[in-house]
């Protein structure tokens, strides 16, 4: 008796379990679950969700995770071909990993195509294998597919106190201004974002590129210990550090943004996504209207390279609601939506919206952002090993910034580790 009761219970449990499986192929789902990054990058998305529900009746469940954790969450979820998420927000350096693994659904099949009002780089960055530059050896010959659409047009830019000087055109100007305005304890000539890991790498790559250095050349040869690269490292850990804030090796984005906001730093690099939070927040900032936003200044190479940090929306292979998810993406990039999006704190990607005068009044960085997107900015090397590379760079650069290593030693240590890593992963890196 008891045994049969157990069996009955088990059967019920099994039924319930099947019933709970995300069901239904095609058709209109009642809700879409979106994995989003926690922070300013998802403010606009969250603000739009109610509008979409009103319009279509589809509820948007936005699940936020912090930056690092979001990546892990997506890797885990894709590995399991999980149906939890219908849409995922991805930072663009994650594209190679997800592209190589085939974790995402192609968007063309749902009718998403290039729009002339959106900078081509925005489609390029969501295309895998990458339409230009080096691609991983395993990806050679694969057809190009559109896998993600930018919803946060993020390019690293530069900010400076426009009430105190002209805009710097080159990194020589940057250094000269920094020396001029640096007053230890009162104002940092240049605020460095130098915490170990991703922060210092994001801060440094535009300098590296503008100096003519790089991590890889077009054949994946490691050139991080080349003279140009070493000169760029020296510029950061010697020249800028001398006119930087105290303990730059522990500073993250919020720390340098805070220094800018309270008037204790003259200039720094900046992501559009962080402007609204601190430097542009009237509750915190004492410098509203006094900060100029410009594209990255030119370095020794004669050019300045911004760095892409676009946030894309993609549809995981595991999602059963591909078409509905794609419809949402389409709606997100419509002109009307983009306008509301920008008004509600989102960072739009449409050129006509970014250059809208009214919106620029409130968001002085929109126009420079549109300019940066047209250049176009560099993206981080398109390898699924990027996270590992970044981690190595972040550790060694941080050691150099903290004064534990010379620029040369850090460059060599990083280059050696990256070579081992890349050859191990099948790249022709020497």
């Amino acid at each position, binding site marked *: 008796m008891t045994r049969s009761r157990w069996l009955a219970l088990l059967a019920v449990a099994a039924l319930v379990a099947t019933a709970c499986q995300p069901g239904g192929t095609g058709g209109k789902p009642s809700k879409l679950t979106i994995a989003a990054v*926690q*922070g*300013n990058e998802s403010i606009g998305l969250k603000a739009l969700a109610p509008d979409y529900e009103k319009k279509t009746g589809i509820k948007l469940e936005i699940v936020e995770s912090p*930056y690092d*954790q979001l990546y892990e969450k997506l890797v*885990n979820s894709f590995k399991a071909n999980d149906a939890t*998420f219908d849409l995922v927000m991805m930072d663009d350096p994650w594209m190679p990993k997800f592209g190589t693994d085939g974790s995402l659904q192609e968007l063309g099949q749902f009718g998403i195509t290039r729009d002339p009002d959106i900078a081509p780089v925005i489609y390029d960055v969501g295309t895998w294998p990458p339409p230009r530059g080096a691609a991983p050896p395993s990806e050679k010959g694969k057809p190009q597919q559109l896998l993600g659409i930018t919803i946060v047009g993020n390019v690293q830019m530069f900010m400076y106190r426009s009430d105190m000087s002209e805009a710097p055109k080159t990194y020589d100007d940057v250094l000269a201004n920094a020396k001029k305005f640096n007053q230890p304890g009162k104002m940092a000539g240049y605020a460095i974002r130098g915490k170990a890991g991703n922060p210092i790498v994001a801060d440094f790559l535009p300098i590296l590129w503008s100096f003519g250095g790089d991590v890889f050349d077009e054949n994946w040869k490691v050139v991080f210990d080349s003279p140009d690269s070493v000169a760029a490292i020296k510029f950061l850990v010697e020249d800028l550090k001398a006119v930087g804030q105290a303990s730059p090796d522990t500073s993250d*984005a919020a720390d340098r943004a805070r220094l800018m906001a309270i008037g204790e730093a003259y200039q720094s690099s900046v992501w559009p996504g962080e402007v609204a*939070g601190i430097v542009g927040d009237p*509750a915190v900032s004492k410098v509203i209207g006094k900060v100029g936003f410009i594209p990255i200044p030119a370095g020794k190479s004669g050019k300045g390279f911004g760095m892409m940090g676009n946030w894309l929306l993609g549809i995981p292979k595991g999602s059963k609601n591909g078409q509905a998810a794609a419809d949402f993406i389409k709606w997100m990039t419509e002109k009307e939506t983009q306008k509301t999006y920008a008004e509600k704190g989102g960072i739009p990607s449409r050129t006509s919206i970014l250059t809208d005068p009214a919106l620029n009044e409130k968001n002085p960085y929109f126009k420079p952002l549109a300019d940066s997107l047209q250049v176009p900015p560099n993206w981080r090397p398109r390898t699924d090993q990027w996270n590992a590379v970044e981690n190595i760079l972040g550790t060694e650069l941080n050691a150099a910034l903290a004064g534990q290593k010379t620029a040369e030693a850090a460059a060599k240590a990083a280059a050696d580790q990256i070579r081992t890593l890349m050859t191990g992963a099948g790249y022709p890196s020497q």
Partner: protein
Amino acid sequence: MAVTVTPLRRPAGRRRLGAARLLALAVLLVVGVVYAFPIYWLLITSLKSKGELFGATPTFFPGTVTFEPFFSIFGPRNFGALLVNSVVVCGAATLLALVLGFAITYPITRLAVSRRLRVNVLNWALSLRFLPPIAVVVPYFGVVRFLGLYDQPLALILVYTLFSLPFAIWMLKGFLSEIPLEVEEAAYVDGASRWQAFRSVLLPLATPGVLAAGIIIFAFAWSEFLFAFILTATPRGQTFPVGVQGLVTQFEIIWNDMAAAGVVAIAVPLALMLAARRYVMAGLTFGVIREK
């Protein structure tokens, strides 16, 4: 206090002790400040406005007190759901760990088993504690997915139960071995079955200890983050510490909301630990020291 303690009195050394007590109080004052300061800092951070937090110099008293962060975490951030999950997960895991703990400690304390078996079981329980979470979390992720428990509180309940077993077993063993076997024997003489004796004699006597063990297990499970983070994806399964972690964003740590969440996170287990203080102190000796 579980045991009332008479302060030492040495007839000849009263004055010396007075001086020593003064010194001790001074030491404790320093220690108290070292411990109270970070907690105080957490509290005032949760009450400061954002402008003040980002100000040029840190302030030791909030200029204007605001409860905005608390509204923020329970309003738009919806930490209430996570708090409920935390209570459910930790509560269920505690119960389960206690039940399993009984199944393991009852035989080794109440039944005539060989000493070797008893020692082996206890040592084995301890070895569980040596299982490094960071090493097992990835395999567990696979297992949990396979069982279809991903993002469900049940997955966390099971994992927390496992990791709570060492504490549960050692504390229960301590409390159970304190209760003389004779009390159950008396019940047997009256014709009670083993189960009846367990339920109506042993369990009531062990209740304070079980309560203490439960509260300690609950409090230790409360702040777990790694498994909670890896094994869940949405507020359906996430616990409070996962939400707290979420306030560290790519570009900024949301200091005041974080502090408010910290204050809330402390409040629940602290209240429990305070309510059961005398039992908790007895539980913390893990039954290793017995004076009989």
